[in-house]
C-alpha cells in the first residue's frame, strides 16, 4: 500500500475545521516537560538507498547450514501455494478485520480454519487463533481457573516448553492464582508426585505431549485422576504430531493448546506464528478470542459472523474472558491453506515421515559408542543426546561442518551441560542424516 501523506493544504483545512491554529495545539494537554525535545532520527533515505541497505544486510545471512534444530520451531517444507494464495490482496493483511462481517471471505477462511483445527485436535470448539503457543497456554490456565470457580491452583509440567512456562508465569503474575511447577523425572512426567498433588483445590494440569524433550507418554491415567476431582486436563502439543498420535479429544483432554508455526509458517527468527486454543463445547463461553460462526442472512443465504461476542471486552467490559480482541489472522490463514493442501492422508504421511526420519537418526547415532540417547520414552521427531564433550564445543564443531546440530539444553535447564536436543523433519534427506551422523562420530 502506498504511503499517502497529507499536503500542507490538507492539514490547514483540517485545523481550520476544528478551530485550531496548527496541529501542535493538539498536544497542548501534554505538559511541556514530558514532550520529546528531539527524536534523534537520521536523514531519510531514498527508495534506492533503502533497497541497497537491506540487500547488504540480507547478504550476511548464512542459508547454507543444514538445520537439526527443534524445540518448538521446526524447519518444514512450505508448499508454494501457501505463499501464492496467502499473499493475494484480498487476504494479505496481518490484521483481523474490524468491520468483520464486511469481510466474508476472511471470515469463511477462519471458519474453515476452526473446522480443521477441531478435526485435528479432536476438540469440539476453537477460536480464530491466539498469538502463539505460550499465550495459548496462559489463556488455557485462565480458562481453567474461571471454570474451576474457587480453585486457584494450576500445575504445569516442566516437560512443557520452558519458554511457554515463562510466558505463562508472566501472563499470570498479577492474577490471584498459584502456578505449581512439576519437575520432570528424567525425560517424562513424575507421575507419583503428580498423583499426590491432584486434589479438589487444583483447577487444571498443563502437560505437553510429546514433551520438550520429544518424549511421548500415555496420560490417560492422569487425565482420569484429574476428572475424578473435577480438575481440567490441558494438553499442549506440536500439531504435526497429531497426525499419528492420539488427539486431545481421543485422550479426553478438556483444553488443547499448540503453536501453529509448523503449519505453513516460516521460521523467520522465531515468528510470526500463531497459537491454537481449542476446548470441549461445554467450555466455549470461557474460551477467549474471536469465534466465527455461520448463519443465514435475511435472504436465506449463508453468511459468516463473529459469534458469542458477549465473552469479549467490547460487550462484557471488565468481566470479559480476556483482553485479546484480535487474532493472528494471516498466520492462521496460511495454516488453513497448508492443511487443505495436505488433506487428512497427506497430514498423516507428513507426521509419519517426521517420526521415521527421527527414528533413523536415533538408530544411526545409537551406533556411536560415545553417544547416549537420554530419552527412556518413545519419541516423535526430536530427542536428547548425551555427549562426552560439552554441548557448546559440539555445536561449534558441527557448525564448522555445515550443521546447526541442535539446541543446547543447558541454556534452559540446570545440569544439562552435555545434552543437546536434536530434531528432524521431512525436509532432511537420508544423505543429510547420514552425513550428520558421520560428522558426529568424527567429533566425539
Amino acid at each position, binding site marked *: 500500500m502506498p504511503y499517502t501523506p497529507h499536503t500542507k493544504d490538507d492539514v490547514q483545512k483540517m485545523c481550520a475545521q476544528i478551530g485550531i491554529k496548527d496541529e501542535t495545539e493538539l498536544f497542548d494537554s501534554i505538559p511541556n516537560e514530558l514532550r520529546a525535545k528531539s527524536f534523534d532520527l537520521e536523514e531519510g533515505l531514498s527508495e534506492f538507498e533503502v533497497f541497497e541497505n537491506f540487500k547488504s544486510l540480507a547478504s550476511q545471512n548464512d542459508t547454507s547450514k543444514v538445520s537439526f534444530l527443534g524445540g518448538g520451531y521446526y524447519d518444514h517444507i512450505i508448499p508454494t501455494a501457501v505463499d501464492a494464495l496467502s499473499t493475494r490482496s484480498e487476504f494479505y493483511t496481518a490484521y483481523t478485520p474490524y468491520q468483520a462481517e464486511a469481510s466474508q471471505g476472511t471470515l469463511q477462511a477462519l471458519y474453515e480454519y476452526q473446522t480443521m483445527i477441531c478435526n485435528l485436535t479432536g476438540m469440539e470448539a476453537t477460536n480464530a487463533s491466539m498469538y502463539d503457543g505460550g499465550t495459548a497456554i496462559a489463556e488455557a490456565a485462565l480458562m481453567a481457573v474461571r471454570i474451576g470457580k474457587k480453585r486457584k491452583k494450576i500445575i504445569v509440567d516442566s516437560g512443557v516448553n520452558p519458554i511457554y512456562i515463562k510466558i505463562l508465569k508472566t501472563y499470570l503474575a498479577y492474577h490471584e492464582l498459584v502456578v505449581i511447577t512439576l519437575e520432570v523425572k528424567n525425560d517424562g512426567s513424575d507421575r507419583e508426585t503428580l498423583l499426590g498433588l491432584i486434589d479438589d483445590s487444583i483447577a487444571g494440569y498443563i502437560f505437553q505431549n510429546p514433551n520438550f524433550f520429544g518424549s511421548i507418554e500415555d496420560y490417560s491415567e492422569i487425565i482420569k485422576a484429574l476428572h475424578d476431582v473435577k480438575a481440567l486436563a490441558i494438553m499442549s502439543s506440536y500439531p504435526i504430531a497429531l497426525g499419528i498420535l492420539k488427539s486431545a479429544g481421543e485422550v479426553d483432554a478438556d483444553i488443547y493448546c499448540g503453536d501453529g508455526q509448523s503449519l505453513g509458517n516460516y521460521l523467520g527468527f522465531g515468528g510470526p506464528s500463531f497459537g491454537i486454543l481449542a476446548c470441549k463445547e461445554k467450555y466455549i*463461553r470461557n474460551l477467549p478470542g474471536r469465534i466465527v460462526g455461520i448463519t443465514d442472512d435475511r435472504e436465506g443465504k449463508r453468511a459468516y459472523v463473529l459469534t458469542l461476542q458477549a465473552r469479549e471486552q467490547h460487550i462484557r467490559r471488565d468481566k470479559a474472558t480476556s483482553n485479546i480482541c484480535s487474532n493472528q489472522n494471516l498466520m492462521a490463514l496460511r495454516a488453513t491453506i497448508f492443511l487443505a493442501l495436505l488433506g487428512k492422508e497427506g497430514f498423516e504421511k507428513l507426521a509419519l515421515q517426521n517420526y521415521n526420519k527421527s527414528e533413523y537418526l536415533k538408530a544411526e547415532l545409537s551406533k556411536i559408542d560415545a553417544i547416549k540417547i537420554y530419552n527412556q520414552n518413545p519419541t516423535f521427531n526430536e530427542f536428547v543426546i548425551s555427549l562426552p564433550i560439552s554441548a557448546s564445543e559440539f555445536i561449534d564443531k558441527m557448525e564448522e561442518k555445515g550443521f546447526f546440530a541442535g539446541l543446547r539444553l543447558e541454556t534452559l535447564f540446570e545440569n544439562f551441560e552435555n545434552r543437546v536436543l536434536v530434531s528432524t523433519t521431512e525436509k532432511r534427506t537420508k544423505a543429510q542424516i547420514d552425513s550428520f551422523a558421520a560428522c558426529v562420530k568424527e567429533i566425539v
Partner: protein
Amino acid sequence: MSKRYSNEHEWAILDGGIASIGLSAYAVEQLGDITFVELPEIGAEANKDDSIAFIESVKAASDIYTPVGGEVVESNEKLEDTPELLNEAAETTWIFKLKVSDSSEFETLMDEAAYKAYLDTL
C-alpha cells in the same frame, strides 16, 4: 407470600427463609431474546447487590444482582438448555434460590405498586 422488586429489576419471593430470585417482565422485555444464563454455584455466599449470575440476550450481556444476601441453595438448571423460559414467563421463572441471611433486606425492597410507580419514572 409477597413479591418484592429491586431497582435493578430483580424480583424476590420470600417463603420460610428461602428467597426465589427472578427478573421482572420489564427487564426481560428490555433485554430481548435471551440466549444464555450463567447460574450461580450452589453453596456460594452472596451479599445483597452482589453480581452472582449473568445473562446474555441478542442485544446485551448483563449481570444479575441478588436483591437479598444469603447462601445459594438452588439454581434453575432448566435455564441452561432453555433460557427462553425467561422470555415466556419472566415473573414466574425463578433463576436461583437463596437461604436468606437477613430478612430485613427483603423488607427494604419495593412492593408491586411501588415498583410499578418506579417503572413510570424511567
